[in-house]
């Protein structure tokens, strides 16, 4: 499967990554090469094989449903590039 520039632009937008047009062309070539190589898997018959979800067989551990952490606003906000009091601030999203 080869991807064209338009597809690169679409997935870049889905991934929320700005990619300039000249980079889109280069990436289309690189991604096509990678995808072509990946297609080696198609020669394998995998009907009826269960997709692997975890390499270690274990049941998810459970704990009591109690609060064990919290009330650490300063810690959480400490690295924010543009905090507003105890909030994360972003550009306006509603007019």
């Amino acid at each position, binding site marked *: 499967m080869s991807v064209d520039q338009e597809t690169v632009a679409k997935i870049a937008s889905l991934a929320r990554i*700005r990619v300039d047009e000249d980079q889109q062309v280069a990436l289309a070539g690189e991604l096509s*090469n990678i995808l072509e190589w990946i297609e080696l898997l198609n020669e394998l018959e995998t009907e009826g094989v269960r997709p692997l979800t975890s*390499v270690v067989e274990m049941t998810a551990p459970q704990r009591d449903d109690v609060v064990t952490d919290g009330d650490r606003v300063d810690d959480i906000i400490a690295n924010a590039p543009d905090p507003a009091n105890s909030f994360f601030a972003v550009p306006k999203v509603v007019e």
Partner: protein
Amino acid sequence: MSEITRLSLSQARDRLQAGELSSKELTEEMIAAVTAARPLNAFITETPERALEMAQASDARRAAGEEVGVLEGLPIAIKDLFCTQGVLTTAGSHILDGFHPTYESTVTANLWRAGAVMLGKTNLDEFAMGSSNMTSYYGNVINPWRRRDDDTPLVPGGSSGGSAAAVAARCAFGATGTDTGGSIRQPGAFAGIVGMKPTYGRCSRWGVVAFASSLDQAGPMTRTVRDAAIMLEAMAGYDPKDSTSVNRPVPSYEAAMTGDIRGLKVGIPKEYRVEGMPEAIEALWHQGMEWLKAAGAQPVDISLPHTKYALPTYYIVAPAEASSNLARYDGVRYGLRVPADSLDEMYEMTRGEGFGAEVKRRVLIGTYVLSAGYYDAYYNKARRVRTLIAQDFAKAFEEVDVILTPTAPSAAFGMGEKMDDPVAMYLNDVFTVPASLAGLPGISVPGGLSPEGLPLGLQLITGAFEEEKLFRAAGVLETAAGFEALPKFLAGE
């Protein structure tokens, strides 16, 4: 430099225990070595003040007769993928600019509890994506080794390239690494040191910057197998904060190194004879088997039939998980923000500027294989093949105790080589990725030199949670190989 920086971690420990050295003396020597090693660019952040404080606290504990940990007073380096409280943590990326975690990763907390001293944070491929350490925003790391009669700077491998270079150049007694598809073992081989990836779930992933969560695992990088055993003992353990961490006791890995491997069955997988592999690597692999045989082990020819599908499987699964994990870098909560008028535009600008080329490539591949219409054809297909690969190993381990392979298909290469074609770079991990996909422990042990005078590694793999057997076999291999060669660059010499 001094005779002190040339000690192995276990030798330094013994000298501390005997009272012949203090942690302060040891740490001061190592800080000087870290400074002298700056031309290698192995560290992103040096923490000499913290190191001295920790060393003095360790000496005080020892003097007070308190119970001491297995790494008491020993200075080590930390891959800059582990969050360290109050100390810049970058993951080698521009997008984490200025990030000072307000918490400590479980693995590093375990190390400090065991008495270790932090020298600093080591350089790595951006978000651990790479096999050359050439994708770091903080610049390339230079391998302390050089080819004979050739001054071309070489890569240290990756992604734990800074950790590998630091240990090889003798400016840390050990370092943490992380391994997703070979990121501990391949740089270990390239730098002539020991690199060990434990079973998935053995070390907590909590507080480690996530790349591909079903594969990522922390492990030690050291000069000797014994050092790795000691360090893993401190790093490993159950952590309720990581739901994939496994609740089973941590044995003494060092005590498991009895040197007795009589009757051990060693599998030699025929699929690891790849086309174009240098003769020296093939010869070392054969020699490795002879060494184990001489110690009483028994070689067994085995087949891992789905080996050739491992890399393409990995390059679907890992980018898919990465595209999801890296969604958190949005310019809102930490790191870089590129201002823009709208929220979407701010995300796009921040991520466009903050991620490097290889990270973008992988996030885009991951987004593609997970997108509507392709999820089943790519992602589910890869997860099915992953089951087949895990079954190959399960079947092999019904017959054998350990598997012996080369660690990498080449010795360290020159900077800039293999950069034009991402797929050529990915082939570096051909021997390490299969065990990663199956979640199995593996270790790279320096075995000998290439005709150009560069170190080559041998890899041992065992079944899940058989680290004791792995260290036992690796110790025997190390003794037989008697690898004594030193890199051209030794810190401060």
